[in-house]
């Protein structure tokens, strides 16, 4: 699973991390906690290279990304890495011009070249998994926060990633919606899906974590 080795990151002239090691254990949910400004989101975003690191190596299977790669080579490896991971953002970032079903099938069809029918059948299963099977034809602007985040999870799972990265998935949600989303994440943990989650809510972190990584 994803390994970080000796990771360093400069941020605004000071070292955010230096010599940091982290292993995501297969089938486990790792919760990254820390006070604000400690760089927990930056660390999570390094796992799929939305942030580049300045020192050390990120590895997933045979994909190895040492710091300081030339841009073209980095883009190639980072894209390969991202194709094996899924990510859920605090602000959902659903595609507003696509309906729910198209949000979920976009990457399987474009990135993995799946047929529309196959992609849609799989998308319906995922929507069912997150309890949103009736929302397939709706557009993101008509969804509540909890609904949006559950669809974002379905979208992230649609490419069959090996690991799911969750960046403060419930911070923008009201308590009712938080419960819906937490249930989905808890179900995934119980089925042995590898996850890494950032949260600033210690109680939620302890509830979902197999393992806590404190920054």
């Amino acid at each position, binding site marked *: 699973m994803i390994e970080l080795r000796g990771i360093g990151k400069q941020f605004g002239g000071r070292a955010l991390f230096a010599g940091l090691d982290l292993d995501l254990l297969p089938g486990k949910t790792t919760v990254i906690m820390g006070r604000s400004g400690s760089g927990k989101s930056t660390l999570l975003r390094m796992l799929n290279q*939305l942030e580049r690191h300045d020192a050390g190596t990120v590895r997933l299977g045979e994909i190895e990304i040492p710091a300081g790669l030339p841009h073209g080579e980095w883009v190639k490896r980072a*894209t390969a890495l991202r194709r094996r991971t899924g990510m859920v953002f605090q602000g959902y*970032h659903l*595609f507003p*011009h696509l309906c729910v079903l198209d949000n979920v099938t*976009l*990457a399987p069809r474009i990135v993995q070249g799946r047929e529309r029918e196959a992609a849609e059948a799989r998308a319906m299963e995922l929507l069912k998994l997150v309890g949103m099977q009736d929302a397939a034809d709706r557009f993101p*602007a008509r969804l509540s926060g909890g609904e949006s985040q559950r669809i974002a999870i379905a979208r992230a799972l649609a490419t069959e990633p090996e690991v799911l990265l969750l960046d403060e998935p419930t911070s923008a949600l009201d308590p009712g919606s938080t419960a819906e989303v937490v249930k989905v994440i808890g179900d995934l943990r119980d089925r042995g899906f590898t996850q890494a989650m950032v949260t600033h809510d210690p109680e939620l972190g302890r509830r979902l974590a197999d393992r806590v990584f404190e920054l």
Partner: protein
Amino acid sequence: MLRFLACLLLAAAAIAQIPLPQRYRDAGVVRWGSDAEGGAPFVYLDGQHPERGEIGFEVDLARELGTVLGVEFRRVQAPYEHLVQVLERGDCDLVLNGFEPTPVRRALVRFSRPYYIFQQQLSVGPAVEGVRGLQDLVGKRVGVLGQSQSHQVLLEHPGIEVVLYESNVTAYEEVVNGRNAASLADLPIARALRPLFPKLRDVGEPFGAFYYAMAVRRGEPELQSALDAAVGVLFANGTLERIYRRWDLWVPEEAKLGDAAVAETFARDIEERGPAPIDWGSAMQLLGLGALRTVGISVIAFALAVLLGLAVALLRLHGPRPLQWVALGYVELFRGTPILVQMLLLYYGLGQVPGLSMSAEVAGILGLALNYAAYEAEIYRGALSAIPRGQREASQALGLSTAQSLRHVIVPQALRLSLAPSTNDFIALFKDSSIVMVITVVELTKQYQMLANASGRFILLGLVTSGLYLLMSLPLAYLARRFERSLDRDHA
């Protein structure tokens, strides 16, 4: 010395004899309208000494008329095709500009006695064979100055494809570069421009006998009488011959200027007639055809502008550094220079480069597309930058490449944001498309100008033309609004 004194006396007598209307005496100025663009030998800028101002045989003539009438003749610049309207508006007091008393013009303004008799000269390009006269040009393109005597002559020869220009220089250029087979021009113009076009070949003898006369407003017979008398004095004392010989324009035909029959050619025919009759059926048909052409040009040009503009915007934001500069340069170049200049360069400029010459329609569409693409590029750049960063990150996290993320996520959203400003631009382009008339394309506005000039019905035809533009742009605006609303329903 004696002759000089005699001349002075004669001039003094003339001044005393010719009763110029009081308001001109009081002002001490008579303003004569003319167009110095492509105006050799009438009135033009000397290319070698532009600092000396306009020269030409009519500049000399105006000076002599001023002397005889005891006032200053001051030149007013106006487009040749609109001299009648400029005169009627009162921006000048008379037109002196190789102005032929065509029936249409005679219905609108009053003409003086002729001051010059001119003939027609046909010229062909270097590659044109077997043309001896107008009869050999059926089915061929012949360029001519719009609203001129040569234009009238061509209209009497059905089957010739007449192409109108706003100057004789461009009409000749189009013969040299092979777009047109021939050009017909007034002899003085043909002679004056010959040194500029050594490749042109004059065919046949000069023919016809037509007159240049000055035009004044209908309600000013006294000014006309004064000009008639002044021309008479200048002919009688040899001044006209002296001027015409200096400009190599004196032909034996000019001797007839003194004939009473010639002098009175236009004197009898000035009763009020009002605007010429107009065939509304064919006028509407012509305007309809012009409108179709306007729609065709606008739609194709805008489609190209959208594609090119999007490409430029994407290059500017996501291209490699050198291409970003190229894209920026493109936008600044095409936004920062007048579309009129771009259009003229594209058509006449490239027309001089072998292999790059294109038809007027193609050049017009391309010119509009290139210009509007710069504006569309800025709209799209703004819209692309306005798409939240999270959209890009979400698609990256899903493994989409930059190109895939642009194509499936960013650009579709940006195009929606651009819809309103882009529609606005389309309506603007739709109206701006009339600029293609400067490169001889006859679209709706040009058709209107031609019909209005031919009939004098500027207001009525103008209202009809405006109505046609509205009829075309309103549904467009309506469709765009509806499309926007339907997007809002989905996404808000």
